[in-house]
């Protein structure tokens, strides 16, 4: 009976032409960390699938069609990806919440739709995306480009909106609604591994939803909709207890088999580091693939997972105890920090380090909130006001409580160099009700976006733009490798007023105003008279005089 049902269901979904792919990519980040990346891809052939929602999550489909979204990226991240130690992730994400979307050119009031979109997603993912408003939204000009096909006559930049909420704390309440979007939810398939007790025990975790259009045919006249849900986790061997990891150690239990609705369910394990840190995989992989991409070789162990199998526990056993290795940083990495002391003036420094032997072109997007007014006149690149490295520049000044400061620079990083971008800011004094709870905790500055066309695929794990599943990275050599990175965020401590005394301040300031008003009123309305100084009056006389004066 069960077999019949499965056959029937497969037939139905086959008729719709929808596909569901689940993949896990695991890469040791020697010597101390382990990166595991999950992606669940739903491909929808025709948009009617939202009406007869089968594999595709209906809620996402409705959001996409109602707000006329062409492409959408939402990530909720806790922790900081360390590019200089860990290389590059498959999908980079900014700490906190990050949302950006391209709208359909037919949308008239993009800002209004954007607010509605963020409010809806806020409800869908239980995240504070409803705090996205015009004061923290920007339209990146050079840093972000759609990953799906676009019509050549459309100015896509004006259709883009970007916002990040670096203060957002990501936790189980975001993961649960995220899992509900999957066809198998968390009962079967790879998503069964995503046990919130374990995945929040990591150094870095990021969940994301990426919706885009992909070409359905060679000439791209027809498009499919791709909904990709991702999870990236970085485990610390110290937390696991040893560098011999297994699914049970990472996720609390083994893999109960593939999702029955999935077309393919594959696990990829990067075993390139086996040479320097020898280990054995158990169970042995189905096959081992060697991928040559842009001059670097990656060896991947591949497991094809079937639906009805015993509990699988993929694991690694190292031959020797922990060993220290030399960390070779990736071709491009960066660092960001805040300068200055006191709470009056400061500066943000973004360091871009190019280790490669050719120049790399990058776009740096600085997005400073309105309460951190940056001064463009103080922009220095390697301490030069007019740097030859800047090829293009875009600046949109911010306005208090309305608009953030937005600076984009197209830079050419010389080979083997460190480029330092410095910009000064002034601390803003907010109204007392504008401070968040625990005002002295500090204020988060979002990360800068660094977009680069890398000349080498060293440490590069991303899926090519035209690809869908992870195996499209195999032997995918290109002239360059586009990548969007986020630098680390930073924190500043704004000067605070005394929150306990609004009444006192109002009273005192008004008293001082009254001190002027009283005498001036007297001077303007009364005149000077000489009054004899008599013997001091008794109390009764004083009272009598008082009433007499009234009568007069």
């Amino acid at each position, binding site marked *: 009976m069960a077999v019949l049902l499965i056959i029937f269901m497969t037939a139905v979904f086959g008729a719709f032409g929808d596909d569901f792919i689940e993949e896990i990519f695991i890469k040791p980040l020697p010597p101390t960390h382990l990166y595991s990346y999950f992606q669940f891809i739903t491909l929808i052939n025709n948009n009617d699938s939202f009406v007869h929602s089968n594999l595709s999550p209906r809620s996402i489909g409705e959001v996409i069609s109602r707000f006329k979204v062409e492409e959408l990226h939402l990530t909720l991240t806790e922790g900081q990806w360390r590019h200089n130690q860990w290389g590059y992730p498959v999908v980079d994400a900014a700490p906190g919440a990050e949302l950006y979307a391209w709208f359909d050119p037919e949308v008239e009031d993009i800002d209004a739709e954007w607010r509605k979109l963020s409010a809806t997603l806020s409800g869908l993912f239980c995240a504070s995306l409803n705090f996205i408003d015009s004061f923290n939204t920007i339209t990146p000009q050079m840093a972000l480009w759609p990953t799906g096909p676009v019509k050549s006559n459309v100015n896509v930049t004006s259709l883009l909106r970007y916002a990040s909420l670096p203060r957002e704390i990501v936790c189980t309440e975001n993961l649960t609604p995220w899992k509900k979007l999957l066809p198998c939810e968390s009962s079967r398939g790879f998503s069964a591994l995503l046990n919130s007790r374990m995945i929040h025990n990591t150094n870095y975790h990021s969940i994301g939803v990426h919706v885009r259009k992909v070409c359905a045919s060679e000439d791209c006249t027809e498009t499919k909709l791709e909904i990709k849900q991702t999870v990236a986790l970085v485990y610390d061997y110290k937390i696991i207890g040893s560098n011999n990891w297994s699914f049970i150690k990472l996720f609390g239990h083994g893999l109960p088999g593939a999702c029955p609705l999935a077309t393919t369910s594959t696990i990829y394990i990067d075993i390139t580091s086996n040479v320097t840190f020898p280990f054995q995989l158990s169970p042995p992989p189905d096959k081992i693939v060697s991928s040559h991409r842009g001059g670097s070789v990656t060896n991947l162990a591949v497991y094809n997972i079937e639906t009805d199998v015993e509990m699988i526990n993929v694991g690694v056993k190292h031959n020797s105890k922990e060993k220290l290795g030399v960390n070779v940083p990736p071709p491009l990495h960066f660092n960001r920090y805040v300068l200055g002391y006191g709470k009056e003036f400061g500066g943000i420094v973004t360091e871009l380090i190019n280790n490669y032997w050719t120049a790399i072109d990058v776009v740096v997007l600085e997005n400073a909130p309105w309460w951190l007014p940056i001064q463009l*006149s103080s922009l220095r690149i390697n301490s030069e006001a007019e740097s030859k490295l800047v090829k293009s520049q875009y*600046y949109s000044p911010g306005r208090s409580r309305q608009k953030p400061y937005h600076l984009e620079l197209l830079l050419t990083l010389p080979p083997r160099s460190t480029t330092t971008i410095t910009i000064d800011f002034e601390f*803003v*004094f907010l109204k007392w009700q504008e401070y968040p709870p625990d005002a002295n905790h500090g204020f988060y500055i979002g990360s800068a976006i660094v977009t680069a066309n890398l000349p080498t695929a060293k440490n590069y794990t991303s899926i090519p733009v035209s690809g869908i599943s992870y195996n499209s990275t195999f032997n995918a050599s290109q002239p360059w490798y586009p990548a969007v990175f986020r630098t680390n965020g930073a924190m500043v401590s704004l000067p605070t007023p005394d929150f306990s005394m*609004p009444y006192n301040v109002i009273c005192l300031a008004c008293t001082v105003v009254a001190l002027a008003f009283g005498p001036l009123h007297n*001077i303007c309305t009364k005149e000077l008279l000489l009054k004899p*100084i008599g013997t001091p009056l008794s109390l009764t006389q004083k009272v009598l005089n008082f009433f007499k004066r009234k009568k007069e």
Partner: protein
Amino acid sequence: MAAIMKYMIAGLVRYWLIHIDYWQTIANRVEIATPLNSWKRLVEGVFLYDHNINPYEGDSFHESPIMLLIFHCLMKRVPYLLPLLFTVLDLLTAYLLYKTSKSFIKIFIESQKKQNDDIAEESKTMLLNETQLTEAADYVLSVYLFNPYSVLNCAGMTTTVIQNLLVATSLWSASNGYGILACIFIALATHQALYPVLLIVPIAILLADVNKGCNKCSYIRTLLVFVLCWGFLIYISAYIMDGSYNYLHNTYGFILTVPDLKPNIGLFWYFFTEMFEHFRLLFVCAFQINALALYVIPLTLRFKREPVLLATVLIALSTIFRSYPCIGDVGFYLALLPMWKHLFTFMQQKFIVGCAFIITSALGPTVWHLWIYSGSANANFFFGVTLSFATAQIFLITDLLFAYIKREFTLKHGLSRQVDGKPAKLVLR
């Protein structure tokens, strides 16, 4: 000769202060630079304008487009001359104030002659004589040149230097009866900082007094010319910004609605930091009316015979109650006070006010450092100091007015404070 020495020394001090290593610190002090007048923001505005970004799109620039254009030219062509320019402009202000006080003193003497009949015989000794008055003009000059407030204001290269020059020029023109010139300069000052709009009242009276003739015609003419000039300037500014009036939000809008709550020596910043959002509009209106409109009419009615006093008091009051005051404004009206040297004997709170000025000037930077840099004090400390500074200024002004009416009374009724042979005291009734 002595006067030239004074100018030389004052000029050199200012020029030297602009070139020392601590210049940045001076130019960034909260007491000296406000969001409205700071050099840093002027540089940022000009930089944005130079890069074809509208500086009024953002929140960093609040000067008028005319200033933007002038400083754009200056910074592009002769950036090395700017310190010298600021010094020279400030010395020019001092010179104009000196000239103005001389003309004012002539006006005093004339009005004294007119009132000669009303003056009690025993008070005749109190009348002003020429030498006292020339001394007063010298004091005005010295106070403006060597008052630390004015010196630091110029050293910080704030646009208040230009503001002071415009106001001084308009006062000088009015005291000499150049109606149109006075109107043009007061319109320029108003265009830059709004609050000098109050001065049109004393200037109109002054012009009518100086250019004898039909008083009402003169008032109307002055007002008309002023409004025309101001309107023209607003139009010209919009023309510079390609016909867009959006700059008004960043200039007058910024002054009136007080969106930037960075501390300064005024009363607004902490009051509106701690204000309940619900009442914000009410109190913004109340405070702005207090600064702009409340005292003009009563003081004008009371002191219409003394336009010079009216001008001094209105400048001082608008300085105390404006949304972004700085010590440059304070230095300016303090320089006008020596003209009233003959009132000092009637003032009762000179000592208190003097002490308060000295103490708050020393304490202000100290508690600011404690709050912002060492984190061992909080905002209340600095607020307390600014509050006492404002109180001291208010005492100074009200005391001056009381002194004036006391002197008026004494001139009329003699020095004796006796009624029917019994000792008596002066009271307001």
